[in-house]
């Protein structure tokens, strides 16, 4: 046997990985700088398959990077900048120590800075890549823009984040691409459809900050640094696609209408323009004057069979979306001062509504409370003193529920002081056979265009003070609901059981449709009969699973009914006591 003896850990996975400390030394950076570099360049630690081999026999838990990744980092020009910055800090400290103030001044002027443009380009080679990954960037920017300027991070970063998030919101308004909103206990989730990409982001409620101590702010600031750069470039490109001016400018008409006498009371001269932009109440200027109501016609391709079905489905969704985009068109909203202004203004404007608020609340209000043409007044307090007759006084949840339901919901359930229906999450998509809360069922029915009759009754009864009648109507309500439910469940059950049950066919020659259906059912039955044993077994299993699902859903529905009944009973008792 010739050749040299092989040594341990000189080939294979041990040479493919490098520990963090070694990588740091190889780049001759401090740990903080190394971390920053990895975040900016998108180099993530890697868990090796055989840790002991990689760790040269030791089992100590360590952070590993792929050696090739670190080699790639060696070429990064920013590494040099980091070193330069380190030297700058050292010199500055020395100058401070020697009290050389002119030197300090000069050094501060020549503070080394670096650009992340090339990194963004490198990490997101195409624009669509960037748009796909913008979720994180948005959430981070919206979060940082709400930070107090207390030194947790640079004030400039906060300002930049604010600017970028305003630009984004203005783009969403201009493109009308918002799809879903969800008010959660954490913050507000939004979902938009931008250039065919579904983008979700979370916006914190205003003034909801406690600063957690177990979060590394330096790391988060580094992410924000990258994300602000990314979002800026994405915004620029998005504005271009809509022929909007970037940086955003209010169009002439909007600018005029927003001029108020007490502008300087709101903000400084330098800030008032961004403040006006952030008011979200006026539209933006375009580079090419747009034609109103331009609707892109869907292309029609000759198609057959499945393609046809698909195309029809696509057309349907397109139509639906177009309808949704104009949800609030023609409506005029007024926000009372206790509602979350920014979120509501954003949502309403995204669907074509007009919105205003009290002048003293924020800059950029377009009309007063006394305006007679206001259709909806959004209030979040139990009662209001002065009410105008020709407008609805509703709670803010109505706006969000309308957006999620894609229709204008009846306003009665959202009047002042009324107990609101639950705010359902639009991010849940029930598959067939799942339990669907009755509120959602109602919504679905409304979407289908069935107008429940009790609506009118309720409207009448709103004015009446008689409690018993109210109760009765509610009972009727319930009864009808139940009926609906039962019907639907029956339908569903039938849909499933058709395949299993063997019913003796009746001859009904006059009904063509019926015979066709029966034929189909017969075919299916025969197919089941002809199944192989194994397939049959599988089939039975699937059917059983479905049935169980339905059973569970039914159980939940029954439970809900019981719960509602109990609630009602309680209410009745209370009323009687009163």
């Amino acid at each position, binding site marked *: 046997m010739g050749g040299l003896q092989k040594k341990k850990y000189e080939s294979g996975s041990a040479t493919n990985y490098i520990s963090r400390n070694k990588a740091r030394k190889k780049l001759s950076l401090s740990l903080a700088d190394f971390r920053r570099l990895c975040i900016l360049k998108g180099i*993530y*630690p890697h*868990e090796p398959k055989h840790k002991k081999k990689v760790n040269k026999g030791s089992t100590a*838990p360590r952070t590993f990077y792929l050696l090739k990744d670190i080699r*790639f980092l060696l*070429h990064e*020009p920013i590494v040099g900048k980091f070193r330069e910055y380190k030297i700058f800090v050292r010199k500055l400290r020395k100058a401070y120590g020697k009290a050389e103030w002119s030197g300090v001044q000069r050094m501060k002027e020549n*503070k080394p*800075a*670096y650009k*992340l443009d*090339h990194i963004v*380009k*490198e*990490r997101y*080679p*195409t*624009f669509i890549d*960037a748009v796909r990954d913008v*979720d*994180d960037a948005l*959430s*981070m920017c919206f*979060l940082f823009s709400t930070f107090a300027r207390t030194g947790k991070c640079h004030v*400039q970063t906060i300002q*930049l984040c*604010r600017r970028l998030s305003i630009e984004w919101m203005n783009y969403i308004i201009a493109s009308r691409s918002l799809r879903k909103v969800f*008010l*959660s*206990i*954490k*913050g507000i*989730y939004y979902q938009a459809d931008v250039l065919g990409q579904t983008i*979700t*982001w*979370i916006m914190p*409620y205003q003034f*909801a900050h406690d*600063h957690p101590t177990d*979060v*590394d702010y330096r*790391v988060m600031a580094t*992410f924000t640094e990258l994300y602000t*750069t990314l979002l800026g*470039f994405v915004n*620029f*490109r998005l504005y*271009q696609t809509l022929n909007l001016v970037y940086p955003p400018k209010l169009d002439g008409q909007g600018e005029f209408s927003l001029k108020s006498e007490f502008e300087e009371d709101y903000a400084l001269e330098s800030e008032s323009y961004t403040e006006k932009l952030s008011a979200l109440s006026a539209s933006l200027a375009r580079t090419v004057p747009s034609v109103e109501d331009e609707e892109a016609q869907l292309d029609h391709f000759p198609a057959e069979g499945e393609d046809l079905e698909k195309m029809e489905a696509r057309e349907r969704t397109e139509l639906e979306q177009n309808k949704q985009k104009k949800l609030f068109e023609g409506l005029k909203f007024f926000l009372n001062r206790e509602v979350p202004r920014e979120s509501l203004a954003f949502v309403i404007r995204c669907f074509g509504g007009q919105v205003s608020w009290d002048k003293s609340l924020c800059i950029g209000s377009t009309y007063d409370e006394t305006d007679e043409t206001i259709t909806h007044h959004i209030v*979040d*307090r139990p009662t209001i003193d002065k009410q105008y007759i020709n407008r609805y006084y509703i*709670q*803010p949840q109505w706006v969000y529920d309308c957006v999620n339901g894609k229709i204008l919901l009846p306003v009665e359930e959202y009047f002042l002081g009324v107990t609101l229906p*639950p*705010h*359902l*999450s639009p991010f*849940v998509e029930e598959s067939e056979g799942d339990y669907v*809360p009755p509120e959602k069922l109602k919504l679905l029915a409304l979407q289908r265009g069935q107008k429940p009759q009790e609506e009118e009754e309720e409207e009448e009864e709103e004015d009446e003070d008689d409690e018993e009648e109210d109760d009765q109507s509610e009972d009727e309500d319930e009864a009808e609901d139940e009926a609906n439910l039962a019907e639907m469940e029956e339908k569903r059950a039938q849909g499933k059981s058709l395949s299993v049950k063997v019913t003796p066919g009746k001859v009904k020659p006059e009904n063509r449709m019926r015979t066709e259906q029966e034929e189909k059912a017969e075919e299916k039955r025969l197919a089941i009969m002809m199944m192989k044993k194994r397939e049959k077994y599988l089939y039975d299993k699937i059917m059983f699973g479905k049935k169980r699902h339905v059973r569970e859903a039914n159980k939940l529905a029954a*439970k*809900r009914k019981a719960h509602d009944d109990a609630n009602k009973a309680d209410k009745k008792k209370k009323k009687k006591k009163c």
Partner: protein
Amino acid sequence: MAAVRRNKRVAAAQPGFLPFKSSLDDNSSAKRRKRVNKNKKKSWNKFSDIQDVEEFLDDVRLQERATGGLISEKADDSLFFVDTGETDVKDTQAQKTVKKGKPSKPLRIDLILQPDSHIPAPKNVLAFQQPNAKKQRRTSARAAKLAAMGVLPRREKLLQLRSAAAASGVPVKEHPEANNNPDRAFYDLWSAGTPETADPYYLEQTKKKLVKRPDRLNEKPSVLPAIEVIAPGGSYNPDFFSHQDLLREAHEVEVKKQKAEEKLARQLAVNEEKATEESIFKEQVQGLIEEEEIEPQEPEGDTEDTVMGPTATQEKKTERQRKKEKAERIKDLRRKVERQMIDKQQQLFQLRSISASVKKLEQRTKRRQAQRKAQQEAQKSMPRRLGRLKFQTPDLDVQLSDELASSLRSLKPEGSILKDRFKSLQKRNIIEPRERAKFNRKYKLKYSEKRAFREIE
């Protein structure tokens, strides 16, 4: 120098030379000559008599100092004048007029400081010399030549450029812009731009072209979405059942945690028996009562005998025994082979069962393969172990039924989005989980009362 000296000597040797000092001539030939070997330089120096020359030169120098030259060489007019016995009236008058205007007498200190020698002080050569003069002369000459040709030095060129830029109104960007400048400008990053025409090799070598990012790096380390939307029970005004679902989930997490804690506590608990009255009494009387049972007498001598070295005395096998054993071995082997043959033959009749078992095995491998694949898929969305610490799932954000807000206005947000984002990054394997560095004090704190404070007390 030598020439000058020679001149002087020649002058002195001339018959018309007047020595300044009269003693110069007297002791010229008084001494006798001494005989010394003159084959060495040292003896030359020592014994050659140069007194006369020295004296003569001293005199020359004195003359020069005092009168500004050799007296013998001076013109007669400067040495003598014809005394006619009358003073110059004009001269005295002029002096008087000067006196009237100003006291012209110089200060005594100035007079002292006046040089009394008529020979000007020698120039300081170093004061007039320039270091590198030659080189400078040459460079300046070259610059002049270049300037005549129209080529300016770099420094001046830059200066001119800058002044031109300032004049045209284009601001010269001198300071690099910070990355988080809120007014920073953006541009179309993804536009095609002009294609690079330069030599790629040149660009690579001068580091103008960045290294291509490997595609592997653009893959995400986890399949989890960036934003995980909270369960429907997390709505500010949730549906009853979804809220209950969420609560149950949170409850289960909490129960699991508690169980783990309890288990730990159980394992760590010290198993100590409590002292009962009986045990206390026993302790108190221990040693007072004689206990006979606890004294088993062990025969020690016997044990020692048994522990001896192993007695390995094996008898040798006889030939017969060996033969017998060998025959048995062979028989055994033959029997085994026969058995195998029979088994193999029997397998022909067991084909069905064998095929069944093979099928079973195959099924098992298939099942295991599927399982492994499923596990791998599941692993993709799991947080990996990237460092010293494991990823800790954050607590579920939940509002209890009585904490739920009745309206949007009274909503109290739960949890922190910042923490949520941070944890999400960890969960997606983008950063490794870490804990806050603990502050370790190197030296203990010492407390002392301030003097002022004590005084007030």
